[in-house]
């Protein structure tokens, strides 16, 4: 049997087993769950090669499954994250509700993502896309929190995207008689001009809704923050990348064929830039770590989309590299928040402080990820951003650079807020009971943190598969100049060798670590947060004077006009208006039998009067 099919069967069997046998005992459930993930990943990494293609037919439509080099990059993210998050989830989810359902659904999500990646035709792509949609939907509402609002918002945007995509797929099918992605790309020039514009736009709506691009990002904060953190890690890390995956194909292989198609690219790139700016601003404003990270995810996906949309080789590479890196560091951060929430019971910055001594390993993971997120060398984020800036300069998008640079700088604010809020600052009695998270949760986080470091030092590890993927997309690889192990190349002709930089920075870190440790032995007096002198006034008991409170007020006064226009308010009032309208129109069913009889007569007369135009 083909390996791909075997993987699917194992996934389905695993999901069913997890759900039904999980009722017997929790250990059995965990064992089945982890075994499924391990076996499938092992099969994937060892036995799946890009050139095996399975073809079959459903309802007369030829379908085919096989792994392309581009999909391979994303599959690495999916399986890698799935295993690590899976291990984390077993401990993290302990004691939560509906565990059988959670783990089975987790497996279904992973299977759906894998399915999306191996689909060579649009129909099975769509099927797996929808399976992913509903399985992730059930995760969003699993916590019973804010179900009717954020859950419904999420599913609305899911189906908006899915239906736009489905419409495009059906048009493609009926016009060209084939649903193969390859056929579509090669026959695209044969479509009429209107279709040439309509199809990519519909497809982009579909993908952008999952990648949370600007006007379609409204669902993201609610969905990310309401689902269990163990799933959000996968959600933000891997699931949203499926949108990016689709966008890569559309932007690179289809939009290029449209006359004047660069407009689409420009628009998407700008939308990406604005998304990142707005997302960052909103992230800074949040007091809840989950929502902050959710907005941060939106912002980070904005960078990725900018890279993908610009579409020069370097930009593409930076987009894909950032996608991988984002998957790693953002999952880590969500796992960190999950761990903190599990240990302290809250995920609010303003309440929790000074966890650095209580949860040092968690802090380490958070620190590494934050550094990667902020794009500070030597970690992976730096390389991605470097390449992004360089590609933007190379393609003369100077205004866009300003936007990106602004949001990337502003990101430091929330990075700092995150670190400080949770870990630094004064220790409070209230949190003195907090312990480090269990090893099964810490180890995955640490592994991920190390990964960010490794990929920062040796970006070639991931740039190599990306290069293969880009060759598949039609980029001619030029003497491997971008993806030497541990070096990157800039367009001014200089090679930047990463190792010296890395070692220098590493040394500085080591020095500070020693310094801090030594300093720690000194006799330090710890006081509570309230115990400060504030210009002679004694603060009242209810005034929370944590540094985090009212953080960056001047900054917000400056950007207030931008923040005031919240796009989800427009959506909400639009939805409310529609519901009110339909509440009114359904009064057409008055409940009076006589009125129905009147409708009957009116209908007859209308048909009789308009018989010439209707028949």
């Amino acid at each position, binding site marked *: 049997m083909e390996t791909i099919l075997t993987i699917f069967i194992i996934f389905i069997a695993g999901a069913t087993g997890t759900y039904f046998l999980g009722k017997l005992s929790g250990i059995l459930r965990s064992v089945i769950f982890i075994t499924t993930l391990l076996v499938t990943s092992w099969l994937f990494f060892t036995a799946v090669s890009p050139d095996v293609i399975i073809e079959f037919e459903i309802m007369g439509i030829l379908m085919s499954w096989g792994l392309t080099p581009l999909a391979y990059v994303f599959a690495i993210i999916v399986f890698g994250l799935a295993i690590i998050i899976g291990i984390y989830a077993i401990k993290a989810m302990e004691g939560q509700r509906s565990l059988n359902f959670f783990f089975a659904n987790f497996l279904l999500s992973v299977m759906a993502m894998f399915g999306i990646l191996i689909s060579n035709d649009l129909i099975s792509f769509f099927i797996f896309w929808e399976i992913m949609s509903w399985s992730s939907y059930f995760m969003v509402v699993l916590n019973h929190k804010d179900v009717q609002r954020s859950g419904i918002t999420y599913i609305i945007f899911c189906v908006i995207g899915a239906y736009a995509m489905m419409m495009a797929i059906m048009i493609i099918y009926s016009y060209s008689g084939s649903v193969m992605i390859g056929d579509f790309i090669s026959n695209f020039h044969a479509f009429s001009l209107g279709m040439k514009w309509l199809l990519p736009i519909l497809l982009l709506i579909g993908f952008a809704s999952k990648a949370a691009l600007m006007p379609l990002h409204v669902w993201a904060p609610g969905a990310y923050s309401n689902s269990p953190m163990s799933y959000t890690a996968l959600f933000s890390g891997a699931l949203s990348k499926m949108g990016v995956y689709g966008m890569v194909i559309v932007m690179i292989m289809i939009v290029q064929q449209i006359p004047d198609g660069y407009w689409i690219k420009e628009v998407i790139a700008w939308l990406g830039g604005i998304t990142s700016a707005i997302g960052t601003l909103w992230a800074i404003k949040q007091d809840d770590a989950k929502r902050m990270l959710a907005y941060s995810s939106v912002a980070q996906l904005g960078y990725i989309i900018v890279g993908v949309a610009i579409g020069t080789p370097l930009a593409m590479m930076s987009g894909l590299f950032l996608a991988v890196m984002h998957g790693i560091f953002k999952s880590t951060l969500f796992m960190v928040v999950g761990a903190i929430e599990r240990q302290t019971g809250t995920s609010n910055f303003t309440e929790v402080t000074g966890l650095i001594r209580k949860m040092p390993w968690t802090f380490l993971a958070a620190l590494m990820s934050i550094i990667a997120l902020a794009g500070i060398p030597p970690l992976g984020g730096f390389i991605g951003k470097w390449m992004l800036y360089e590609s933007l300069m190379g393609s003369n998008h100077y205004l866009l650079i300003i936007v990106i640079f602004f949001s990337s700088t502003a990101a430091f604010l929330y990075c700092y807020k995150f670190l400080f809020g949770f870990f630094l600052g004064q220790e409070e009695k209230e949190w003195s009971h907090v312990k480090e998270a269990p090893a099964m949760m810490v180890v995955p986080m640490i592994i991920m943190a190390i990964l960010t470091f490794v990929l920062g030092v040796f970006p070639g590890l991931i740039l190599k598969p990306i290069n293969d993927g880009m060759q598949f997309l039609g980029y001619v690889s030029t003497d491997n100049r971008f993806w030497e192990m541990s070096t990157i190349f800039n367009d001014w002709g200089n090679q930047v060798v990463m190792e010296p930089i890395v070692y220098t920075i590493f040394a500085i870190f080591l020095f500070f670590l020693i310094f801090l440790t030594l300093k720690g032995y000194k006799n330090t007096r710890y006081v509570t947060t309230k115990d400060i002198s504030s210009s002679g006034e004694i603060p009242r008991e209810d005034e929370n004077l944590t540094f985090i409170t009212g953080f960056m007020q001047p900054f917000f006064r400056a950007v207030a006009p931008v923040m005031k226009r919240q796009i989800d308010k427009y959506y909400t009032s639009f939805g409310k208006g529609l519901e009110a309208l339909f509440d009114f129109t359904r009064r057409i069913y008055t409940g009076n039998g006589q009125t129905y009889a*009147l409708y009957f*007569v*009116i209908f*007859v*007369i209308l048909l*009789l*009067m308009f018989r010439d135009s209707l028949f």
Partner: protein
Amino acid sequence: MKKAIVIFLLAVFGFFLAVTFLDPDFEAERNHNGVKNFYLDKTVSQLKTANTVTAIVVNFRGFDTLGEVTVLFLAATALGSILFKKRHHIGDRTVLMPASSIVSAGSKLIFPAIILLGAYVFIHGHLTPGGGFQGGTIIATGFLLMLIAYRDFSISHNVLSVIESFAGIGFVTFGLLGFMNGGTFLQNFMGTGVLNDLISGGVIPVIYILVGFKVAAELTGLIYTILHEKG
């Protein structure tokens, strides 16, 4: 206001109906060579039935009649179901005033005659205008008279139900017998006899008599149910 709208609508509707049905074309286009002549022809030559309408109702379009009988059966059952009450809730008969002695005496006198007339009508359904439906209705009016005239006149529901069921079963059974003997449902499988004889037309009179029983039983049942309904 509402009335004005309704009158306006009905005027428009009536205009269309008038244009449709009062137009001489409506008649002119008529295809007189349709099924009509065939029916008239075959009724005499094959079915040996004097009344063409009966032949059509029972034989040519017997399937419709089966459906029609089912509709009646359904209506009777539906009435029972919609007005269903537990047994001890069944009320007294609702009559506005006690019948005068003339009515009670007269109805006793006239009742057998009505029944006889009904029986005559449905037995001669294939020869004269009339038939099972008409005869059954006449019989039911006889029972209605008795029910109005005598407060204590009562009919066993079970008996009605048995008659009704047996008549219905008989109809379908004759249909199925036709299916077994002649190959098609409701086929006229019995000898047809001589035109205008009482015993002629094969199964047609038999089925019509069954229909007569069924209609009589069902209509009586309907009347009985409604009369025992307290408002």
